[in-house]
């Protein structure tokens, strides 16, 4: 017999348990998407198929404003946090060990550990004061806050990619007359690109999905998709919410799929 190592996927019942988990995970989403095509207004009361709630959503100015805010917010926050994360990852892996490197690591990953509600409460006090003093109530506060908590999500895949990279490649480039910048452009960056892309996608999805911090920091009349949905859920539960949620789900799926295709092609 060849090697017969312990393999959890071969235990009896594994398939059943796995299927059950999948069903529990995805059935609610399937129901949500299904009911988004309901012609009736009342949730859970099937009155035939229709796309009219998608039409309604696309004409709903409040929803469109929230969607636009969310897109601006997620794009800006993930771009800035990916930039920061890339620089931080380069600094912590590509230079000689320096004093305080461990501390930097902890500080960078802090938002992963602190309960979000604590961060939100801490921020709301400061942000409230700044709003009062300056009179500025735009998206800037949300962008700053989202950038902060997106950094670790962008940082982790980038750092993992850098750590897995053969250091001798950069040495070889230097040996072959490449300056530091040329080495970065021709060797480090192209090899790092899949990591940067997954970092960016992860940050984007995390920002798009954020409810607590956005809800605490938003100015009156300002909404992101999650805070808008939350508000609607409290006021009027119609099939339109299902349509909007389905759109949000579609966006997330597209991003994840896009990230997967992009990283797979690069390798």
């Amino acid at each position, binding site marked *: 017999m060849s090697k017969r190592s312990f393999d959890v996927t071969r235990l009896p019942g594994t398939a059943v348990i796995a299927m059950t988990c999948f069903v529990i995970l995805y059935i609610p989403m399937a129901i949500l998407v299904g009911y988004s095509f309901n012609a009736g207004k009342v949730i859970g009361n099937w009155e035939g198929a229709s796309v009219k709630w998608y039409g309604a959503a696309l004409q709903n100015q409040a929803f469109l404003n929230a969607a636009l805010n969310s897109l601006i917010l997620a794009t800006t926050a993930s771009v800035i946090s990916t930039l920061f994360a890339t620089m931080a990852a380069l600094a912590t892996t590509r230079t000689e060990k320096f004093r305080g490197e461990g501390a930097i690591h902890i500080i960078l990953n802090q938002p992963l550990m602190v309960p979000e509600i604590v961060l939100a409460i801490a921020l709301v006090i400061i942000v409230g004061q700044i709003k009062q003093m300056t009179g500025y109530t735009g998206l800037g506060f949300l962008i700053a806050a989202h950038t902060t908590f997106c950094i670790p999500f962008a940082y982790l895949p980038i750092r993992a990619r850098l750590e897995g990279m053969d250091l001798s490649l950069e*040495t*070889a480039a230097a040996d072959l007359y490449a300056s530091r910048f040329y080495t970065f452009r021709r060797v480090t960056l192209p090899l790092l690109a899949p990591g940067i892309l997954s970092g960016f996608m992860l940050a984007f999805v995390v920002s798009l999905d954020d409810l607590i911090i956005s809800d605490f920091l938003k100015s009156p009349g300002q909404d992101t998709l999650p805070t808008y949905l939350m508000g609607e859920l409290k006021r009027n539960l119609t099939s339109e919410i299902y349509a909007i949620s389905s759109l949000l789900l579609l966006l997330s799926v597209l991003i994840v799929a896009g990230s997967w295709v992009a990283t797979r092609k690069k390798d």
Partner: protein
Amino acid sequence: MLDIRGLSKRFGYGKGEVTALHEVSFSIAEGEFFTLLGPSGCGKTTLLRLIAGFIGPSGGSLVLDGKDIAAMPPNQRPVNTVFQSYALFPHMTVGQNVAFALEAQGRPKSEIDPAVEKMLTLVQLLHLKNRKSSELSGGQQQRVALARALVAKPRILLLDEPLSALDMKLRKDMQIELKRLQRETGLTFIFVTHDQEEALTMSDRIAVMSGGRVQQIATPRELYDRPANRFVAGFIGESNFLSGKATGGVVEVAGGRIALPDATDGAVTLMIRPEHVVLSANAPDALQLEATIAQLVFFGTDTHVHLTLSDGEKLVARVQNALHGGLSLNEGDRITISLPDKALRVVKDEEIAA
């Protein structure tokens, strides 16, 4: 053309300090195939990295064509490296890998394209120009690494155990190919290996290293015939060592006596190669000893005869197998052997150390 003067390198600080290289000095001539040979951890890679500029020396100087390059960054040194792990750029094709050095130097495309083709032809890989470098066999990667390092015509090519990852057959082929490349390009090679046979067959000169020091620098022939000390003798080829006592130029060993003018009074160590041991009493000017045949080991081309001397010391002799008939020797036989004085070397016991 390359003068290494008192070059030393220490790693770490305080208690963790390691001296990888102790004031190494030697010169390499234009067009030479120069080999650094020594066991793992003796500082070969460190010396190579110092020459390439990946690390800076703790002391000493590095003079190339009359200019001290010790402080020059690696991308300005006219020296290229073939890495042990090849370090090919995995996201580039074979052609792009080879073109890299010229592109980094900002040469025009009209110059790069023919140069890349020429290099790929030289290493017989032109047909794989557009293949991803990660899709090549070990031997092919090896040759891409060579072409990539040669394309910018460096003053010196550094090779860090370039053949160690290849299997035996490929290794022999590449040894011949490397030698051919060196002759055709007329370049100076500094070649690192821990394989003494590889060093002996390929090199013009060899520096034998141990413990961060150069033990001896000589041609392969000289190293083999006149090892400077016991370490070199033991590392290059096979050797027998006999301990004896010298008085007035005469050495006493295991019940025999021989005149060796080199020997200074006191305890001495004599070295003799197995193929120089004569299994009979009738050699002129030889040390004659009584021995018992402990074991005969057949090796195809020759037979190794393991002998035990009257004082219990062991000795190995090597005899070539003749076309007809076997050796007229049997295990357990007591014979008289001769060690010709021309083949006996007085070697220093201690290697060069602190």
